[in-house]
């Protein structure tokens, strides 16, 4: 079940640099006057960063499908909570 394919350190450093780059981008876009598009852009970048960390540093890429489901299921649970609660708050 667990992976024995060891990720080469080079990959970790590459991921690290990408994350720092994305950090710079996200901070930069925060100051661009994009109006309503600002929030989706910031969130998209943070989702990408999170995906990078989970796939590479947390070895999800080579993990058993069950582990992938467990990794994602928390986000779905909160998604349901936010979406249905907002559906109430916004249509009140």
């Amino acid at each position, binding site marked *: 079940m667990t992976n024995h394919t060891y990720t080469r350190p080079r990959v970790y450093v590459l991921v690290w640099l990408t994350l720092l780059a994305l950090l710079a981008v996200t901070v930069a876009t925060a100051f661009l006057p994009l109006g309503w598009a600002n929030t989706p852009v910031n969130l998209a970048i943070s989702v990408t960063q999170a995906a990078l960390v989970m796939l590479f540093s947390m070895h999800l890429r080579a993990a058993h499908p069950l582990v992938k489901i467990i990794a994602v299921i928390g986000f779905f649970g909160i998604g349901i*909570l936010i979406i249905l*609660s907002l559906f109430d708050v916004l249509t009140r």
Partner: protein
Amino acid sequence: MNSTAIATHESYLSSGWNWWSWLSTLDHKRIGIMYTVSITLLFGIGGAAAAMIRLDLLTPHSQLVSIETYNKLFTVHGVIMVWFFLIPSIPATLGNFLLPMMIGARDLAFPRLNLLSWYLFVGGAVFTIYALLNGGADTGWTFYAPYSTTYTSSQVFAVATGVFIAGFSSILTGLNFVVTVHAMRAPGMTWFRLPLFIWSMYATSLILVLATPVLAMTLMLMVFERTFGIGVFDPALGGDPLLFQHLFWFYSHPAVYIMVVPAMGVASEIISCFTRNSVFGYRFMAFAILAIAAFGFLVWGHHMFVSGQSAYAGTVFSLLTFLVSVPSAIKVFNWTATLYKGQVSFEAPMLYALGFIGLFTIGGLTGLFLASLGLDVQLHDTYFVVAHFHYIMVGGAVMAFFGGIHFWWPKITGRMYPEGWARFSAILTFIGFNLTFFPQFIVGYLGMPRRYPEYAPEFQVWNVFSSAGASLLVFGYVLPLIYLLWSLRYGERALNNPWNAKGLEWETASPPPSENFHATPVVTEEAYAYARAESPHG
């Protein structure tokens, strides 16, 4: 294993009887027993509160206790029965004891974590009982803001801390069960050869793991708001009390499935054994359990139809609630169909299981009344709702829990319970239960609100019926305690498989050795392969 051989060898019980051998055990069976003892004591406290409530409600004016005390009584009854009895009842006792044995494992995946779960549970109970002794909370088990956060000075902090700690016990037990079912099944035990009790433990554990953290953080937000006087639920600061209800019910509706799904698993085991028949539509039953666990997370808004939630959101939640009740309906029909062309016998566990089907069916059907938007306006927060969830939780979960205790008692203790007394108490519980809670449906539609120590005089006749029924129900619960303890010493010695039941747990000694099986069993046949096996008692 010849079923007539009497177990005389070294069992998990005889490996030490001093305090330390119990308090430091890593054996899932001993931890299961420690849970059983703890929740029995807590059931006593919750039951005593219920008895005082029923006595106080005999008269329209609250004469037994003051109305402030009454509010604390139903809070104690709610908190203890929900978090310290019902949620742990089947998973922590029967689940802990039987799950490893039924899948052919030596123990759970993380024994130390399992012992930690018990200590967390007891720690949580200590906080709650401390609060009870120091005046208790008076917010009801629902802790609705802004009353719980701003307007009450009762022991909300201590009770919330107790439930918070006990929540971690639930999470860790759930984690333990999910990993064990995935990683430690015996050779040949494929997913669709798993007994339905294991399916129910698996689905319950998924809900335990995915819902309980939400409760923990919601209680933490509530307690912080109470302590620092500021929070997102405080209407004075622009916060939204309905946000607390959303977060609370996002946990609490899946929690009611935590309480009833294990009972479904136990019922399937008992019914298939005492009808000598494989469960009708095994795969449908397994998928129905998973569907209940999954859809259970989408429907919490039906607790808030009249709470100020928008009509559109209420409509969506009403539709989703109707969808989640279909799997439960399927299960009831499948249990009934299991009796078809079987060899039906009526030992005590079977009486409890049949009682479970009857009461769970009534509970489920009245849930449909409440899911209908139009009707819920009249029924919400009345005794109709009280009767509905007692039919499901007490009629369903507790009947199945007692059925399971009786069914696996020979395996757990190596002793047989007295059959006559057990059948009598099963029937007495069924009758007492109906007398107690059916009148509440009627007084509910009449409009009698919940949590009322002082009620309008015309509701009194139904409350007297209900209290009378409760006095019968008390015996239904006390009797098993007596004769089961009696059976520990004087009960007839049990065979390894007294019911000739299918399942790996019956293929080892009663009571089983510490390592469950001398050799890891290999599974070759399907689940419930009763097909014409000889009936109980040979």
